Structure formats: structure tokens, C-alpha cells
């Protein structure tokens, strides 16, 4: 939870991604309590409603769950769930963008595949 907020993306998406990153890095463990929306608001100097929106994305996707009156907790299996989803998004977020840029530069399909092989 020590990352800076950037201006490139919606704040609430960044909040949800930061919590996910902390789960992937074992900074937040499964069944552990995550900071409250008011804590997050103060930490990042953002509106609590925005912080809540970020947290709720993770509740909706099942990464976090709510214990009434206590707070939000990391679900069992959250880490695996995040990895699975990020793999699925990899195509949209990275592969498509690479292909688009390759087309505008006139890079052939064969050359692109060769580059990927070499990048390893």
C-alpha cells in the first residue's frame, strides 16, 4: 500500500490494483483485514467514496469479503483468483496494444513473432 497514485488511471482502479498487488506480494495475506476506506482516504488524500468504490470492485469480484461491522477481509483463494484474471486481461491490455503499434509501424507478423522470441 506504499505505491504512489498516478494520473494515468482512475483513482479507484488504482486503489483496487494496489490492494491486489499487496495480495500478490503477500503483504496482505488471505483472511487478513484490509485498511478501511477512511484509512485509505487519509493515506492517499482522496475522497472516501472513491476509496470505497475501489474496495467494492474487489468485493464484487470476490477478492475481498465483508464482515459486517468489522471491515473488509482478503478471501481465501484471492491470490490465485487475481493471477487468473490478470492472465485473462493480458491479451486485451498488452497483446492488442503491441499488435496495433506493430501495424502502424509496418512490422510484419513474422517479424513481430521473431521479436517476441528474442525478448525472452
Amino acid at each position: 500500500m506504499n505505491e504512489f497514485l498516478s494520473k494515468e488511471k482512475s483513482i479507484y482502479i488504482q486503489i483496487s490494483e494496489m490492494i491486489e498487488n499487496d495480495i500478490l506480494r503477500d503483504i496482505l495475506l488471505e483472511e487478513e483485514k484490509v485498511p478501511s476506506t477512511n484509512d485509505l482516504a487519509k493515506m492517499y488524500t482522496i475522497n472516501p467514496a472513491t476509496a470505497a468504490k475501489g474496495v467494492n470492485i474487489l468485493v464484487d469480484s470476490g477478492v475481498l469479503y465483508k464482515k459486517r461491522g468489522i471491515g473488509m477481509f482478503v478471501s481465501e483463494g484471492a491470490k490465485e483468483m487475481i493471477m487468473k484474471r490478470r492472465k485473462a486481461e493480458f491479451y486485451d491490455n498488452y497483446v492488442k496494444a503491441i499488435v496495433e503499434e506493430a501495424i502502424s509501424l509496418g512490422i510484419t507478423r513474422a517479424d513481430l513473432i521473431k521479436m517476441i522470441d528474442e525478448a525472452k
Partner: protein
Amino acid sequence: MNTLECKGIVKKFGSNEVLHGVDVTLEKGKIYGLIGRNGAGKTTLLSIASGQNPATAGEVDVDGLKVWDNQDALDKICFSRELNITAGNTGIGGLKVKEYLKAARTYFPGYDKSIEERLIKEFELDIKKRLSKLSKGMLSMVTIIVALASKSEYTFFDEPVAGLDVVARDTFYKILLEEFAESGRTFVISTHIIEEAADIFEEVLFLDKGNIILKENTQELVGRTVHVSGVSEEVDKIMEGKKTYHVETIGRSKAATVMLEPGEELRNTADITVQPMNLQQIFVAMCGKEA
């Protein structure tokens, strides 16, 4: 009925009309940002909304009570104006900070002295100094202390961070959020330092030449407003049927600020670049001079 409602507010100074029928409803428990250029009418609107000045036409209700000349309504509102002290010890400038704060204490029924004491400490403000001896930033600190300690349900700040250094500004935002989390008070903050406060505002209001031209959830506004540039014809296709601002054409290329529908997404193609915009850039596109 937990709202502050401005209905058709018109304000004229002589023949000069500065507010042209402002209709705006503020809900309890939100932080609003009021953004407008110099002379747009921000201070006038806030002073009318807080019952400090009469409107030429229209009225303001708070939680169903008329604000003008009504103590019950006024007790719910605090408008902490910028302190403008002229040189010399005449008038209010001759007061020491602690004397000024003592006067404020009697003015607001819910005044919380513990907030005052904490802020004096956080800001390292010398309360034995006279107001006329304070710097611009220190005067801002005094107005912030009064506004936060007032505990008023509806609290308006007019340029609260003017002259404050970056550390003091950060202190202000953090304490504001803390107080907001604890109390659920409604805050309206007018500011020219847009970007650093943008993430605090749940909603923003753009006031342009005496009219509210936009009132929207900040994150939604930022999420759906993009800068589109590239091949002229392709940009035209995207602009069709959409709200656009600040359209610029240079040779075969075109650029525009485009408002997408909620949920709509636009991606880069070989011919166009789509870039996110921050609140300040959106404000300039909507309220700045046409290119």
C-alpha cells in the same frame, strides 16, 4: 430534505449581473469542489448560499429552512471567507489571532475548541500575533481553523489553501478528510489549485461567467473525458453526436476534448490517439478561451 438548495439565484451589482439564475442542490455528507476563473462569481455564490449577502432574485434553503435572515438556518452554515487585512492596526487587523478565534467561538454554537487547538499546533501558528502581522498563508490557516472548528453542517471554504506551503496544504487536506470521516459534514471548497485537491472532491461544480455549467461526480467526469487527436477525418467521426470542447485543427490533424457516454470506451488506433485528461485540463478545455 438534507440538502442545501440554491434556486434561481441572480445577483446584480448595479447593472452588472454576476450570477444568472444559479440552480444547484448540495447533498449532505459530500465534499464538493467549486471551480471557476477569477470573477466567475464563486465568492458571491458562497456568500449568498451562506446567507451573508442577499440575492437579487431566487432563494436558498437549507434542510428545508429559508437561509436569509433565519438564525436556525444560519446556525447550520459556516462560510469562512478569505481574510483581507489592510496595512496598519485599524479594524480587525489589530486583533490578535487568539482574540479573533475567541470571537469565532461565540459565533458558532457547535464550535469545537479541541479542533482549534490541534490545528494551531499542526500549523505551528503563533496566536499572540496580530492579524495584520500575519502572512497570506497564515491568514489562510486562521480561516481554516475557524471553518473546521465551527462544526457547521455545511461548511464553505473560499480559497482555503491560498498562500499555504505544500506541507501545510497536505496537512489541511488530511485533517479535512479526517473530520469528514468522523462527522459526515458537507464541505464546499473553492480553489484554483485544482489538481492536488481533485481527488478529495466527490463532486465538482464548474462555475463559468455566473452559470453553473457542470455538476458531476469527479471520478466519473475524469473517467469519461478524453483528449482525442490524430487524422482529421477519424477524429471527426468520433466527435459526431458527442459533446466536444476545445477543437483544434493543425494541417491534416485534429484534436478535441471529447465527453464519452458513461461506460463508453475509446481505444487508440493506428490513426488516433486517445489520452486521459485530468480535472484541470478538463476545466481549461471547458472554461478556457477558445483556440
